[in-house]
């Protein structure tokens, strides 16, 4: 566990202790201790068209102790709460995996483990985030440093000045917690933010100093961007009014990454308030691009059954109902092919930097 400067926040700790009180009060009244946990699923998510983001509904699920199906989860929830409050008291941050190890032990007089895999403890932490309305960073849990940033901006991290224009082609590794208390944006002179799905394409752009020529911030999340990357993009968008463009593969997963950046994810709908960037634009790869940029058919990949099923799901999401989007997705389904960003290298190694993006930006060829 890394020691970081953290301002102690008694509120979260109180909420955690509240769980213990819940058990104690229920026990005194001879009631079954029960907590209500908001449901994190599509059924409890609504798309707020006015705000342009996903919002979590108020459907809740009861988690009771004296119910055979839930007893273990209840016990696990209390254990995780205990571990989290320990973090609060010790003023430490930690990872999801360390929480798993911290709370794992074999229950006395049995050979049952409190947790068998991390898959059991991770959702419980998310449950607590939602039900206590505490952000993950407020719970002192950080995710992996999942992204990189490079561009004309200066950050302050732990008192260090980080000039993202002077970090070579590797850039700055975006921490999972980028709230102003942890990371401050001291200066930013960029004109826009380009969020790239893949690290390889980000490397290409960084190596070619694309950001210098077009005066932009290059961000990547290596796949589905982690919270830190999303939050940082949102802050740049909000605090410096920078437009955000998203560059992803042309497949249903790429579309969904864009939609997560734009409206928020179903699982973390409660976070979209501070993560979503409703004005983010989809710059590519569009299903219209192969024709427009004369990509040969042989660099496409046949859509598999999963791709097709996922694309059809997307078609039904409320936030993909705009005619342009319906056309985009249907065009991909009709062609039966998906294209990776990497496929642009078929024309030239620097095609992305020198031809594709310049033309896109010039023609303002993007989807909203």
């Amino acid at each position: 566990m890394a020691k970081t400067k953290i301002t102690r926040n008694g509120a979260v700790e109180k909420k955690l202790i509240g769980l213990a009180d819940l058990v104690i009060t229920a026990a005194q009244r001879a009631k079954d201790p029960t907590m209500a946990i908001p449901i994190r699923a599509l059924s409890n998510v609504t798309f707020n068209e006015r705000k342009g983001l996903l919002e979590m509904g108020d459907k809740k699920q009861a988690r009771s102790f004296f119910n055979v199906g839930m007893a273990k989860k209840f016990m696990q929830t209390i254990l995780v709460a205990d571990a989290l409050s320990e973090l609060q008291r010790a003023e430490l941050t930690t990872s999801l995996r360390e929480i798993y190890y911290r709370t794992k032990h074999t229950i006395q007089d049995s050979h049952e483990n409190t947790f068998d895999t991390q898959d059991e403890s991770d959702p419980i932490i998310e449950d607590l985030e939602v039900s206590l309305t505490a952000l993950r960073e407020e719970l002192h849990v950080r995710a992996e440093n999942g992204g990189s940033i490079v561009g004309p901006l200066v950050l302050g991290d732990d008192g260090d000045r980080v000039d993202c224009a002077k970090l070579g082609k590797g850039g700055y590794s975006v921490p999972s917690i980028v709230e102003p208390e942890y990371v401050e944006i001291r200066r930013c002179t960029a004109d826009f933010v380009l969020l790239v799905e893949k690290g390889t394409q980000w490397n290409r752009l960084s190596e070619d100093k694309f950001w210098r020529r077009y005066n932009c911030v290059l961000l990547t999340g290596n796949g589905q961007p982690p919270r830190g990357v999303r939050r940082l993009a949102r802050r740049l968008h909000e605090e410096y009014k920078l437009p955000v463009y998203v560059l992803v593969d042309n497949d249903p997963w790429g579309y969904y990454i864009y939609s997560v950046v734009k409206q928020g994810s179903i699982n973390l709908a409660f976070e979209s308030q501070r993560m979503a960037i409703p004005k983010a634009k989809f710059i590519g790869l569009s299903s219209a691009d192969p024709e427009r940029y004369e990509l040969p058919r042989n660099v496409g990949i046949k859509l598999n059954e999963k791709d097709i099923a996922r694309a059809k799901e997307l078609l039904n999401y409320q936030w993909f109902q705009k005619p342009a989007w319906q056309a985009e997705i249907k065009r991909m389904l009709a062609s039966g092919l998906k294209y990776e960003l990497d496929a642009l290298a078929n024309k030239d190694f620097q095609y992305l930097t020198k031809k594709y993006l310049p033309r896109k930006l010039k023609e303002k060829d993007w989807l909203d």
Partner: protein
Amino acid sequence: MATHKPPASTSKKTDPRSASAVTAVEMGARQREISISEFFTKNRHLLGFDNPRKALLTCVKEAVDNALDACEEAGILPDVTVQLEVVAIGSSAAPSASQATRFRVTVVDNGPGIVRQQIPRIFAKLLYGSKFHRLRMSRGQQGIGISAAGMYGQLTTGKPVKIISRTGPKAPAHYFEVQIDTKKNEPLIHENKQIEWDQPRGTQVAIEVEGRYQKGRASVDEYLDQTSIANPHVRLIYRTPEGETKEYPRAYHELPPSPKEIKPHPYGIEFGMLLRMLQDSKSQTLSDCLSSDFCRVTPVLAEEMCKAAKVSPKAKPRDVRGPIAETLYHTIQATKIMAPPTNCLSPIGEKAILSGLYKQIKGEFYTAVSRPPSVYRGNPFIIEAGLAFGQAPDRVTKPDKLTQPLAEGEQEEGGSELARVIRYANRVPLLYQQSACAAFKAVLATTWRNYGISQSRGALPAGPMVIFVHIASVWVPFTSESKEAIAEYDEIHKEITLALRECGRRLGLFLRRRERAASEFRRRNIFELYIEEVVEACNRLKGGKLPTAKLKAQLQKIASSRTGGIKTDETLGKTGAGPEGLPHSIIVTAEGIDGDVPPTTDLTDSLAPPSDVPEEIGIREKPDSSKSGRKPVGKTRLMKKENSQAAPPPSPQKKTSSSRPQAGSAKRGRKVRPTGKKQ
């Protein structure tokens, strides 16, 4: 046996291509009859002597089958001793059992003995015996077995078969050494004298053969093991070549009812057979012949059939041949005739199967089903199935104590073993060609998943389980002379499947009940376990200032009220089907579903293993206390606390309903179905 017939016109001396071509005359000179013994000398694999290991088993098997058949036919509870000894070759010292290549197989029974004149022919003439010409259920069928074993011994070791037989305490014991004249298929007597013998009655056969002794699948040990399961009325002593003595005690003290001999059923004969019967008939008229030489043909029916076939009922049977006979044959096959009588069959019976399984296999659940008789090709048969499920409690507890905390990705050892199928035909275990056997195929074709047993596609069900299948018939349709697999007639397949399903249903019920008890137990258990965790965590959350004992007590109170409190405690009682109560989890019962479990007295008398005794005492008390008015015959074998678990509503009703047909109808078997429907 067929002789080679050369194509008539092929050989001509003038043919330049083959200098060695022979004339038909020369060939004719070479053509001669082949003796049956010569034929089998060359084709010994047809009789089960393919390799030394199997040959040893076949010798034991033939001798034991004969001994049991003889005892049962004479109404004697069989006492059989099997001894295997290593024989040294030449002057060298005897090798160890696993290295030895020559053995002496000695089988002694307490049967009726054999009269002196018959001894040589029984043991040294192929196709000589009492069983071939009659339709009566017995282990042996053709009269090949024991003489073939003798012939094999003679062939591989040159030693004669040695027989001692005595027909009663007052009769002298005769000692014979015989060999077979393979050309003439006649016995050669080497030695014949009266001797002193310590047995008052019985027969002893000793054959020296080349063989290999190896334990495991399809071994002599397995054969005797399985024989003892299906023949719990037999007391079997086995002296292994390693010098051990194993005793299989008698678990069932009643002889199986002696099967009656029947005449052939018209549906079961082929045209040629009909012709021969017509020729051989002693009757004067055709209708008389039909009604007296076949079963289920009344004189009226015989006349009707004659009329329908347009033959005079008064015709001499001998004169009916050619097309008339063929019409008659087809008419007979088309006539509706009652199924053959079934008193020619002697099923093992559910009680006996249960005691056999219980005696030999350690498990938690046993059940057995005898189907009503059915008919294939005019031959009556009965299918019986049984099932032993689970692991003996001692096997379960051991690993439990050693368990360490599990690391990620580790799992508790699951039972990945597959079920074992043991197959019998007329009480004889079938050890080879499992996958060709109708019984095995029926086990595969049964959807065990319906009964809570996992089964992958086209495979045996998984789990600690032994599946027992027995076919009893006057003529068991084997796929070959070595009697290893049952042929798959539709009727047989159907009956086996029905029997297996019934077993499966009962097992499913048992598993569900046990699962229910276990989950209730687990419920209690998890709350208790988790309360500890939750209270400790709350205490830490509250900064260690919590009165933990109080909170724990409060939560435990809620827990016990939620799980039914004391009532559940009682229901759970000693069941302990949950992980904590393993020592008490011996549920060795058919659970009130079928009431046909061995009478407890029989069990107590004969169950040798001392570890079982305490439970037996428990069993014996149960029927007395709970069902006062009735005899403890055929009552569910209730183990200790098992009663408490079976107590919930289903079982008492079942018992009463199933007891009625039991009291009224046949003593053994069959009345299981009334209860079966309920599930």
